[in-house]
């Protein structure tokens, strides 16, 4: 037996697996295993319960502060009174009207900003000279509160929605441009080289290589752009109350009536819209992009991938 096993195995007794069988075996062994995703409800609950607990904690602290009368009741109403104000603004439609007016303005302004921001961002990404010229100015604009533009916008456009859009644009465009630029900067050079080898030139290079490769960074810029758009709009609405409508005006009404519960309700609604847009629009978008590129840790790679 021993002599048989040490003899060179060349005979028909040992058959070499075929190339395709070997390849199939390797593919099967080395294919990363994808973990099953938990069900939708489980996912929602997992992310919701800590947030809900925190909200409950905040209301409890508020209630205690109210009972200790840290401020007189007209300045610090109880959570229950504020809830009543909230219900009445919802019932008489003021909440809905203000919210829909503001969201419509923000959405239109934001979409305009995306168009303008993508155009400027693509131009700067494509031309190093343009970028050296305008890049620092755009970064500077990003740190300039866009409320500073409100007087100028009022002088140019009067008390119209155009003023709102101008302020939103000036707030959101720099973030979107910088997001796009950050996204293109992070594109691995090898991707660009492959595009060159495949014959992508000019517009096809931008359309099929640069923009999709820059998408994750660009989404970050969009998200920040939205946040800036929303803030700018609230500031503009608060300052130019005469234009009317919107959550900013609701807030101002609360202030002029010294109705603290209306002020709190307005702040709450502004906050709610910000969170809702994040949860409904940006989080799913970001998750979809990262998932499709295998960047979320949903897969555990068993093989090497040097």
């Amino acid at each position, binding site marked *: 037996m021993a002599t048989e096993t040490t003899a060179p195995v060349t005979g028909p007794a040992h058959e070499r697996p075929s190339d395709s069988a070997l390849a199939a075996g390797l593919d099967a062994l080395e294919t990363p295993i994808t973990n099953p995703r938990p069900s939708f409800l489980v996912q929602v609950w997992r992310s919701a319960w800590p947030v809900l607990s925190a909200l409950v904690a905040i209301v409890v602290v508020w209630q205690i502060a109210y009972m200790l009368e840290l401020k007189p009741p007209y300045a610090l109403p109880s959570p229950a009174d504020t809830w009543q104000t909230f219900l009445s603004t919802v019932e008489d439609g003021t909440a809905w009207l203000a919210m829909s007016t503001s969201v419509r303005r923000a959405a239109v302004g934001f979409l305009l900003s995306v168009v303008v921001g993508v155009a400027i961002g693509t131009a700067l990404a494509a031309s190093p000279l343009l970028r050296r010229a305008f890049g620092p100015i755009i970064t500077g604009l990003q740190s300039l509160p866009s409320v500073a533009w409100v007087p100028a916008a009022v002088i140019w456009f009067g008390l119209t929605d155009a003023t709102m859009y101008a302020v939103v644009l000036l707030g959101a465009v720099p973030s979107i441009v910088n997001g796009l630029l950050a996204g293109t900067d992070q594109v691995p050079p*090898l991707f660009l080289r492959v595009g060159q*080898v495949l014959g992508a030139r000019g517009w096809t290079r931008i359309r099929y290589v640069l923009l999709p490769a820059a998408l994750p960074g660009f989404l970050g810029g969009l998200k920040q752009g939205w946040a800036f758009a929303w803030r700018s709009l609230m500031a503009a609405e608060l300052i130019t109350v005469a234009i009317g409508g919107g959550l900013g005006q609701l807030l101002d009404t609360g202030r002029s009536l010294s109705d603290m519960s209306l002020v709190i309700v307005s702040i709450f609604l502004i906050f709610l819209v910000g969170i809702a847009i994040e949860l409904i629009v940006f989080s799913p978008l970001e998750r979809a992009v990262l998932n499709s590129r295998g960047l979320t840790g949903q897969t555990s790679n068993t093989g090497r991938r040097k």
Partner: protein
Amino acid sequence: MTTTATAAGGPGTLGAPAAVAARLTDVTQHFGEASRPPVLEHIDLTVQPGEFVCLLGASGCGKSTLLSLIAGLDQPVSGQVEVTGGRPALMFQEPALYPWLSAGANVELALRLRGVPRKERKAEAQRLLSLVRLDGAAPKRVHELSGGMRQRVALARALAQEGDLLLMDEPFAALDAITRDVLHEELTRIWSETGRAVIFVTHNVREAVRLGQRVVLLSSRPGRVVREWRIDIPQPRRIEDADVSALSAEITEHLREEIARHGH
């Protein structure tokens, strides 16, 4: 078993001059300005249509620079680079597949950029993927594939380009030995099925002898053609075959001499 040709080219170059896949004539290339030391110097190299040539050299021999020149990504400082049969395809050590596209869509993108009409792309991509034995992989995302599978998708994408010349820059260097063996077999089969000329850069002597019809040894700093071997061992070869090993040992000696010259 083997014949050694000292001049660039080897038997066959004396034929019709038009019938070459690629021809480099006295090519010199520098990194940056011409005042800097050359990366490649006086390179003469002719590749016949359908020929499989392996370029072998240590670090600093300018192998990747040479491929960039042939691919038309860079222009040489002096000398001429001629390529016939369309834009050459170039494969890298990394698969460099686009992670925002499925495996099939990666191949289809190459077809689209080459101008293949939309209706034909899907079927053609399927055909190329089954050529690299990845029939069911078209809808898979890049991160769902193993390293070897990714490199095969990259091969399918390279084959989707119209060029008659396939340039490969150490494409299997990051893979483990068994996967590399399998891919050697796949590449040999695909090469003989498609009839493309291949220029395969590697620092692995056995790999060069296993795959090539001709092995060209380059010196380092600057890269020059030192010597070349015509390999007549019939395919299918295996990397562990005795005659592959014997020739590898011989070539390795020369490679070592080349490297040792730089120690002084």
